[in-house]
């Protein structure tokens, strides 16, 4: 399994989804060799469900492993580097071209678009040096492994997956959690589009996290409908039954996510302004960081909302849980959301979710309000209605807990298992 995130390395949505999925697949008896960005040539041989937490480490070069000693932990391999170090390409005389020709391409057969891939990878820009590095390491690691299927998440791991397929002749399943069309909110980066297009076209099977995302890749990347299977994300419910820990006695409405165009933070602010005009006894909390953060903070202050609209800034996992536990209503006004795990987690804490129709999670949830992200008046009227009817709020809250408890990784893993078997 190839992925860019896996806890404790970058525990965003992708990381948490891979963790849940891996754990459920391990429970179903699948063995996983996990390759993630590290600054050493290592992989993580996961054999039983607990391994997803303890993360056993295997070094390709055992003498290198000895240097670190027996007690080496994953944290030691990611220390100081947000992604991974550049050592592989900056030491010695090696250029990417020489590594590509002398090391990466050795033993690779049957792949026709290698020049195209080289052209894209050798360009500079955000992520590309890291992707080159990951690709080279992953291919080298894979030469030492024995496996049946390549399961690769998102475009960052696509180049590695394609090359490993050429190396091993094993099928490549591309798992699509989001596309550049969701993230960019505009034209996006053409190199990333190219890599996503390549993945959609050349992978043997495609898994998408929602029908919403399937439609995007069919429409934009001309994906072959017959190759696609939808497997909605799930998550581990650990929170059910815990009493709510309020921060404010007033009803509390929460937004948590990256403060960026895709997530619709400006719609959340407009909603707050309109609600507070009609009902003073409501609190709004916005948690997260992002490129629109400053703009939104200044806007909120200029509306003179006092302490009614507060920002939480960067959230640790513990902060996140505390705020969800304090939430009565959770809003996800995303402009485009391939899946959207946050509302599920909020619901498990008894928050009533108001979610964008332009999201994957809307396909699987009954007991949430589904709205168009731009329909501020509708969202305002739902909030006012819930605030004025504590009984309805409580009923919806109970229904939310109940429904979300049924969404398990076990079922999702079974679907993935079927895909493995039939590939």
């Amino acid at each position: 399994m190839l992925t860019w995130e896996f806890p404790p390395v970058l525990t965003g949505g992708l990381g948490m989804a891979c963790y849940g999925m891996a754990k459920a697949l391990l429970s179903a008896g699948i063995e996983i060799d996990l390759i993630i960005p590290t600054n050493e040539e290592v992989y993580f041989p996961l054999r039983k469900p607990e391994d997803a937490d303890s993360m056993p480490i295997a070094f390709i070069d055992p003498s290198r492993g000895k240097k670190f000693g027996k007690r080496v932990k994953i944290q030691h391999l990611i220390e100081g580097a947000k992604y991974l170090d550049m050592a592989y390409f900056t030491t010695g005389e090696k250029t990417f071209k020489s590594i590509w020709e002398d090391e990466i391409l050795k033993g690779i057969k049957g792949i026709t678009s290698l020049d195209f891939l080289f052209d894209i990878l050798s360009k500079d820009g955000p992520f590309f040096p890291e992707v080159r590095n990951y690709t080279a390491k992953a291919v080298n690691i894979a030469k030492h492994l024995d496996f049946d299927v390549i399961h690769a998440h998102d475009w960052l791991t696509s180049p590695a997956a394609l090359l490993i397929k050429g190396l091993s002749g094993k099928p490549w399943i591309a798992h699509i959690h989001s596309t550049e069309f969701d993230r960019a909110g505009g034209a996006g980066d053409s190199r990333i589009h190219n890599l996503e297009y390549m993945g959609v076209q050349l992978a043997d099977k495609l898994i998408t996290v929602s029908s919403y995302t399937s439609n995007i890749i069919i429409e934009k990347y001309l994906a072959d409908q017959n190759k696609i299977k939808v497997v909605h994300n799930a998550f581990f419910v650990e929170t059910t039954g815990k009493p709510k820990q309020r921060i404010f006695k007033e009803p509390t409405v929460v937004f948590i996510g990256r403060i960026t165009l895709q997530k619709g933070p400006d719609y959340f602010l407009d909603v707050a302004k309109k609600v507070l005009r009609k009902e003073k006894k409501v609190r709004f909390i916005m948690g997260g960081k992002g490129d629109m953060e400053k703009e939104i903070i200044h806007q909120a202050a200029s509306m003179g909302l006092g302490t009614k609209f507060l920002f939480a800034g960067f959230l640790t996992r513990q902060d996140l849980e505390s705020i969800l536990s304090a939430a009565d209503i959770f809003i996800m006004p995303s402009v485009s959301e391939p899946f959207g795990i946050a509302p599920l987690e909020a619901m498990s804490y008894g928050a009533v979710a108001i979610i964008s129709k332009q999201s994957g999670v809307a396909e699987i949830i009954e007991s949430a309000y589904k709205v168009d992200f731009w329909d501020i008046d509708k969202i305002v009227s739902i909030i006012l209605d819930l605030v004025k009817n504590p009984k309805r709020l409580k009923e919806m809250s109970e229904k939310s807990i109940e429904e979300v408890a049924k969404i398990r990784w076990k079922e999702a893993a079974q679907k993935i298992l079927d895909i493995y078997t039939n590939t």
Partner: protein
Amino acid sequence: MLHIVFYFQVHQPYRLRQYRLTEIGKSGNYFDEELNRNIINKVSDKCYLPTNNLLLELIEKYEGAFKVSFSITGTLIEQLRQYRPDVLDTFRALAKSGGTEFLGETYYHSLASLFDENEFLEQVQLHSKLIETEFGLKPRTFRNTELIYSDKISDIISELPQFKMILTEGADKILKWRSPLYAYKSYTKRHLLLLKYYRLSDDIAFRFSDKGWVEYPLKVEKFIDWIEKLPLIEKTGKKLYLNLFMDYETFGEHQWSDTGIFEFVKNLPKHVLKHNFASFIWPSEVEDSINYEPEALSVKEPISWADTERDLSAWLSNSLQWNASKTFYKILSNIKASGRKDLLDTARKLSTSDLYYYMCTKYFQDGDVHKYFSPYSAPEDAYMYFMHALADLEKRLEEGI
């Protein structure tokens, strides 16, 4: 005759810690004790102790001819009591030396004069009481936070008749063609006004160690030469007042010891006093020394000594600062109305102007003076944590915690 008014602002705020949203209703401890203690210790060792000792020495040496004035805020006195009683002792020694005047201001170095008249007067009275208990002196001269002044502020201060003199900034926009060397009166003529001579004050406070400045290095001889050449001296027979106002931290903290700043102070009285045209004076002596009827000045919009604008924009120029201030004074009045005296002191510590200064987005760039003074990496962070503290305070008030 030229009288030099050498006046120092001595202040440190209670800086806030990064009070997280999830702590609202749980902790109630908003202040960064470690940071505040470290800063008090650092400034004490680099500035307060050496400068106090130097001034004591000079006051003794010139037997009453060398005079300086201080205003020390309540938030600093409290922190000195807690962390550096030895420094407080040297301020007491200065008060006893007979060479100093202690001025009145707001206890919390706040912007209350702009938002809440009653709170403003209460804070000024609290401060005067503190100065009397600590130093045995009753302030008779008033200087508002950051030299903020307007006609309205003069009106409010009239409620406290002990203050006959107010210090403020010699801003060009109010002086126009006039010279800051004259004493002036408020628009109602109820207060005497002394206006900071900002060029010569800032030569010491800001430019002293600037190697890019054409006048670098600034020696006392040169400075005295400038004073001698000030226009009007000895020509009209009117008494002139050269108002050198600055932060006390200029000595040893903003201008480090190795810049020669202490030598400068040490040599200043010697060179001033050997000329018969100049002497040192306290603000409270101006009333008796003046030999003309000062002109009345009207100041409609508040002025201050901050930045090149010399207005309120350092504390009140963006929406973060306005929302924080307005929300704060609303909660403060609710606290007073509820009779929750236990919350009052903590609340008032949040009125300190520095906390709003940290939210200023004007000039927030590397190396800038705003950034130098801020404990936060961004104004938005300062705002966020401040609002969490306010929300906590509000919750304690509303829920009776």
